[in-house]
């Protein structure tokens, strides 16, 4: 584990991505501790342009957009991480079960996975979100997670079933090791690099999904996320009022967060997958 971390650090793509992401998290965690004002407080007139006092101006309600952006980034990253984690766990569990157990269970699980890969997760997300009255941030994140596991499941299944009949797994079986033990020590280490990469990608797509459903007006309640900021900007016609500060910073924040995650993923891919190293 230590050595793979050392290799990773030598990949500039991974390093740039990881540093950007961590700095972003550190900043949005620390800033609210220094500036303890309430982001929903109205401090100015509507759509004031950026100034020394209001770094990113004010929104349609006259709230400090810079502060809102900080809270928005925090919520969005949180949603992304929780969604990514739940999607990875579900995908890993289904993939391992299908790949390792095989037979009927494999057939059924693979069929379910294939069906949910084709049915757009976006639609399932809308259907569930419409039906739930009060969506907290956590619930939104988990809903995103449970609609985006099929990719991970498919890849984990493919790798597990190719590992299942390798010699070291057979030896472990003959030695009488229990199934959980075999999976933990003989299978998981081989697919770990893939699982970590899947988690990073799922986090990025979780952030994008949150932004998408919030844009539709189906985001979490009583909070500020990047998607909700964009939804407000559009609903209250910020583009028409020329208030670029109401949506450009939020838009770029989403792009930068997902870009840093994609960079991390590409960096890892090149390390763990020497064939595509250019």
């Amino acid at each position, binding site marked *: 584990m230590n050595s793979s971390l050392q290799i990773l650090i030598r990949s500039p793509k991974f390093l740039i991505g990881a540093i950007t992401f961590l700095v972003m998290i550190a900043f949005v965690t620390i800033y609210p501790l220094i500036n303890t004002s309430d982001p929903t407080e109205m401090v100015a007139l509507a759509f004031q342009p950026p100034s020394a006092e209001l770094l990113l101006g004010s929104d349609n309600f006259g709230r400090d957009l810079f502060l809102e952006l900080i809270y928005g980034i925090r919520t969005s990253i949180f949603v992304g991480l929780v969604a990514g984690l739940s999607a990875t766990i579900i995908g890993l569990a289904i993939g391992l079960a299908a790949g390792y157990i095989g037979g009927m269970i494999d057939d059924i699980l693979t*069929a379910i996975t*294939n*069906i949910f*890969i*084709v*049915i*757009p*997760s*976006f*639609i*399932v997300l*809308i*259907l*569930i979100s*419409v*039906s*739930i*009255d009060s969506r907290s941030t956590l619930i939104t994140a988990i809903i995103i997670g449970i609609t985006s596991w099929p990719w991970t499941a498919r890849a984990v299944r493919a790798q597990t079933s190719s590992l299942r009949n390798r010699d070291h797994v057979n030896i472990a079986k003959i030695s009488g090791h229990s199934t959980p033990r075999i999976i933990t020590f003989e299978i998981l280490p081989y697919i770990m690099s893939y699982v970590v990469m899947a988690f990073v990608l799922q986090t*990025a797509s979780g952030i*994008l999904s949150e*932004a*998408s459903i919030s*844009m*539709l*007006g*189906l985001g979490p309640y009583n909070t500020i996320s990047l998607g909700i900021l*964009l939804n407000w*900007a*559009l609903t209250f016609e910020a*583009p*028409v009022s*020329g208030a*670029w500060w109401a*949506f*450009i910073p939020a*838009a770029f924040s*989403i*792009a*930068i967060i*997902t*870009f840093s*995650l*994609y*960079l991390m993923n*590409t960096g890892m891919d090149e390390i763990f997958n020497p*064939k*595509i190293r*250019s």
Partner: protein
Amino acid sequence: MNAYRKFFVKKSLWYLLTLFVAVALNFLLPRLIEGNPVSMIANQMTQVMTDSDSMKKVYDTFAAEFGIDKPLWQQFFIYLGNLLRGDLGTSFGLYPTPVSTILASAVPWTLALQLPAILVGWIIGNALGAIAAYKKGVFDKVLFPTFLFINSIPYFILAIILLYIFGLTLNWLPTSGGYNYQMTPNLSLEFIGSVLKHHFLPFLSIVLVTIGGQAIGMREMSIYELNTDYVLYSKLLGIKDSTISRYVFKNAMLPQITGLALSIGTMIGGSLITEIVFSYPGIGTWLFTAIRQLDYPLISGATLLIAISVLLANFTIEIVYGLVDPRIKAAQMEEE
């Protein structure tokens, strides 16, 4: 051809099953969850109306449509029966317009926007990705991060940025709607021009994001192919670079077709939100309106329509892929 027919039948059966699951989810999810929208909204709707006679009528319409008083499995058969007759229910927001009428007016707009945009983006993206992999060096170092960055911008954000720059700041192009609403739709050149002008910005934003994603995939596939033994062997044989790149392109292209099939759901979802940004009169914009008005039948009709189109697009691509890729035919032959 017999092998291909078998492949076709197998795929068709799979897609029928998937279609059934999609329809069942569309029916079940909103009904199973606590305080389900169907009965609740039907109640809410009737509370708004004051005239008791029309209230009763509205309530009866929806009660009959949903079969609220019947057990769930009977409701499902009512739902399926209605679907088979092409009846998607009555809109709450635009009562008493049928949902199918609203969606039918939106489909041509969405199709005309998304189909060309996704295809054009896919073709350009693949070409650029192949070039980046082939030329390497500075070209790749600049293009690749650009693709990656564009790919991390959600569709609608690029849309907002384009709208702001070209529509509002430079005032080059109209910012909302499908055509100039002062005109009446006809086949005159002026009207077609207006449609094209309104089409351009949403089209461009979908194309750009699609290019990003496709180019990344194609670049990876091409780099992989360029490192294979047959490329090295051809180089040693002294075969012209342009010929080798044609081999590589062909081989790298096949997985990209599957890639298109698999990402088409996400693409359509993203493009729907692009429509909202430009108030384009397609399904995405209607979905947005429906969600704001809690127009449940319209939401449900739109999600079902989108799910079915994604399935159909996938099915088409897979069937074509079976024709194009000799390996699929070979695999089918082996099975026999």
